[in-house]
């Protein structure tokens, strides 16, 4: 079955073309094509995962694509436990999101195109996941970036949305430049772009440590951009301008996880360099804390979730920064986070669908009107906050435990603080949205079933997914699927550490209830004064980027472009116009005098000679006979004389 792993990315890509070309003419305007393709891909992914679960080795199948000098490109799939799990996550979240979108996007301006872009994104992401070599991975990496751009700017008629799309694209691109050079470094050092071969070479110590550090740091630049880590995290909250299901698929569960996935896929490269690992861990700790604090002060429900995503991705990064002990926990967190974060976004979308605003100040009391959305959102929040026994508890606890056991105190403390902050801002979001009295203008109502069913599915996963690796009960299924080295590495479960992390989460919830249990016009955190302003302005990072980098660059570039336009391009255009006029005049003269003259001359000659010759044609047979005889006589004389 694993032979057909290549079909998993191929199916949504085929669906993309089908939807683009035939979507508008088919019933359902293309949505059923995308859903059917991703469902088939999901079933195939499950079969692939069953192969891995059955103890199968990583399977690689590659074909040479082309060769240019030393560069040998191939296309292929490399399926190990990590890739198989990712495939299941991507296809299932995509399936839930596409079904949900049928309801959410009903009657949209670009309904068919929306589904086409979703399919293209899913296919590209799956290509990134299964890619057997770095260049193929890069193709998927860039394609998901483009899809993200397209979908964030889906409602581009509003300037704000297209600005957000451009910001997301350029910010991630800033990370992609070092990423590209990282690939080059690794390829030059290893002589191959194949991930399996690179891993083997690194493990046998055939690549110099310094080179590996450089490659890992450059590659991590791409991960920082894609996974919205500090200092390039600024694009993700703005990316919430896109339709909410898009945020759930791309900016919560899958694409932003690509950075973490990349670091895990090339874990050998990172693990070989202590510098790179410390850097990853440091970025993780910084990002998780600043993003969690930012999530506290947002009024836009989607932005709360966006900063939460940044913070949780940083959790995974910090986990990877722990080295080998943190590998499985961080990927497990990636796995569980996908379910509950997709759930939270979709539930938030359901709320937005009902009240027509993102602003939590205009919500409140929705638990009565929207029971399904309320309960699923509550489940997602609890899972995210790490409440026992939901999915987030198990994965988060594993990272905290791994940090403690491997002696990374900074990461341990940062993770605990983030856990408390996470619980606090999620409590705030739940209380502001669903409790108290309704403060908005709309008439909220529960969403249609096509939207609530995906919520229920994801809620079930948010509850159950954690038990795949519930070490307290001796379950290590996930660790057997996803691990580095030949054997799964299992940490003993520590009830004391679990109690500490639960305590942190409990403290967060308690603080949240104390602060927001009763709704107040003025956010109680404003009492912090200038500190609050500092956080509210996002640590002035956006201002710094805009005033320090974007504007000066943009003005210089614009001036240069303007000058080039005015003097060089316009000059070229004008010169071309002048030459064209001259040539045209010449051709005109040639046409009138020579060509027309020849044509008229032929006609005139024919006319005159015809007029003259017609006098010979008397119709008198005897006269013709005279000509005939004269001609024969002349010929006879000539022949006899000459002969």
């Amino acid at each position, binding site marked *: 079955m694993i032979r057909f792993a290549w079909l998993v990315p191929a199916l949504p890509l085929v669906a993309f073309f089908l939807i683009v070309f035939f979507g508008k003419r088919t019933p359902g305007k293309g949505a059923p094509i995308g859903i059917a393709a991703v469902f088939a891909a999901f079933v195939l992914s499950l079969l692939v995962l069953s192969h891995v679960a059955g103890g199968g080795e990583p399977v690689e199948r590659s074909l040479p694509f082309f060769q240019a000098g030393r560069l040998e490109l191939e296309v292929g799939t490399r399926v190990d436990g990590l890739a198989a799990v990712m495939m299941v996550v991507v296809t299932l979240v995509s399936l839930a999101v596409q079904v949900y979108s049928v309801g959410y996007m009903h009657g949209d301006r670009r309904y068919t195109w929306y589904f086409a872009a979703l399919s293209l994104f899913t296919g590209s992401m799956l290509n990134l996941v299964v890619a057997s070599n770095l260049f193929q991975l890069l193709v998927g990496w860039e394609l998901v970036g483009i899809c993200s751009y397209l979908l964030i700017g889906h409602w581009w008629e509003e300037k704000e949305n297209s600005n957000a799309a451009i910001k997301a694209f350029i910010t991630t691109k800033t990370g992609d430049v070092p990423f590209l050079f990282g690939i080059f470094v690794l390829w030059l050092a290893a002589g191959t772009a194949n991930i399996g071969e690179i891993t083997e070479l690194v493990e046998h110590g055939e690549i110099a440590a310094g080179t590996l550090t450089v490659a890992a740091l450059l590659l991590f630049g791409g991960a920082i951009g894609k996974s919205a880590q500090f200092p390039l995290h600024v694009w993700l909250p703005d990316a919430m301008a896109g339709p909410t299901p898009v945020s759930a698929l791309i900016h919560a569960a899958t694409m932003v996880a690509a950075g973490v996935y990349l670091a895990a896929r090339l874990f050998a490269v990172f693990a070989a360099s202590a510098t790179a690992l410390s850097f990853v861990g440091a970025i993780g700790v910084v990002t998780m804390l600043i993003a969690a604090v930012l999530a506290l002060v947002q009024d836009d429900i989607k932005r709360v979730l966006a900063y939460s995503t940044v913070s949780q991705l940083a959790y995974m990064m910090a986990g990877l920064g722990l080295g080998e002990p943190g590998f499985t926990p961080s990927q497990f967190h990636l796995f569980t986070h996908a379910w509950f974060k997709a759930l939270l976004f979709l539930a938030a979308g359901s709320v937005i669908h009902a009240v027509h605003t993102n602003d939590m100040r205009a919500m409140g009391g929705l638990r009565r009107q929207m029971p399904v959305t309320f309960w699923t959102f509550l489940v997602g929040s609890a899972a995210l906050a790490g409440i026992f026994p939901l999915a987030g508890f198990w994965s988060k606890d594993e990272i905290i435990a791994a940090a403690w056991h491997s002696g990374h105190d900074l990461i341990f403390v940062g993770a605990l603080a983030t856990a408390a902050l996470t619980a606090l801002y999620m409590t705030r979001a739940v209380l502001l949205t669903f409790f108290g009295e309704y403060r908005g203008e709309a008439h909220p109502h529960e969403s249609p079933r096509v939207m609530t069913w995906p919520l229920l599915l994801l809620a079930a996963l948010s509850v159950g997914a954690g038990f795949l690796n519930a070490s307290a009960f001796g379950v290590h299924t996930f660790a057997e699927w996803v691990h580095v080295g030949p054997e799964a590495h299992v940490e003993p479960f520590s009830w004391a550490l679990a109690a500490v992390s639960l305590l942190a989460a409990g403290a967060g919830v308690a603080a949240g209830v104390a602060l927001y249990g009763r709704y107040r016009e003025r956010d109680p955190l404003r009492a912090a004064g200038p500190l609050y302003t500092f956080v509210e302005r996002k640590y002035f990072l956006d201002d710094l980027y805009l005033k320090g980098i974007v504007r000066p660059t943009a003005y210089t570039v614009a001036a240069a472009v303007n000058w080039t336009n005015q003097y060089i391009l316009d000059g070229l255009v004008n010169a071309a116009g002048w030459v064209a006029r001259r040539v045209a005049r010449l051709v005109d003269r040639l046409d009138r005098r020579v060509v027309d003259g020849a044509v008229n001359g032929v006609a005139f000659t024919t006319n005159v000679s015809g007029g003259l010759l*017609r006098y010979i*044609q*008397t*119709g*008198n*047979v*005897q006269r013709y*006979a*005279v000509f005939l*005889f004269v001609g024969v006589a002349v010929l006879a004389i000539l022949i006899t004389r000459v002969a």
Partner: protein
Amino acid sequence: MIAEATIRLPFVLFFSAVLFAAGVYGVLARRNAVLVLMSIELMLNAVNLNLVAFAARLGDLAGQVFALFVITVAAAEVGIGLAIVILIYRNRETINVDEVNLLKW
């Protein structure tokens, strides 16, 4: 072959030429279609005369055979020619070749 008993070739050729010229004149100058046909017959017979004369002179029977073919073809030609003349007469009430000028421009 006894040379004294034969007519000498130049006489025959001269006679033949006169006959041919008479035929040419008839074809070119006469207006009556029947007479034009008869003039063609004259020219053909002038040719026959030449053929037979040269055959006798050269002792080659091929010329005589050729003359017989020409006579056969001439008979056929006269048959078709007269049929055409009759049809023209039926259609146009005349056999004057000057008046048969439908093909004139």
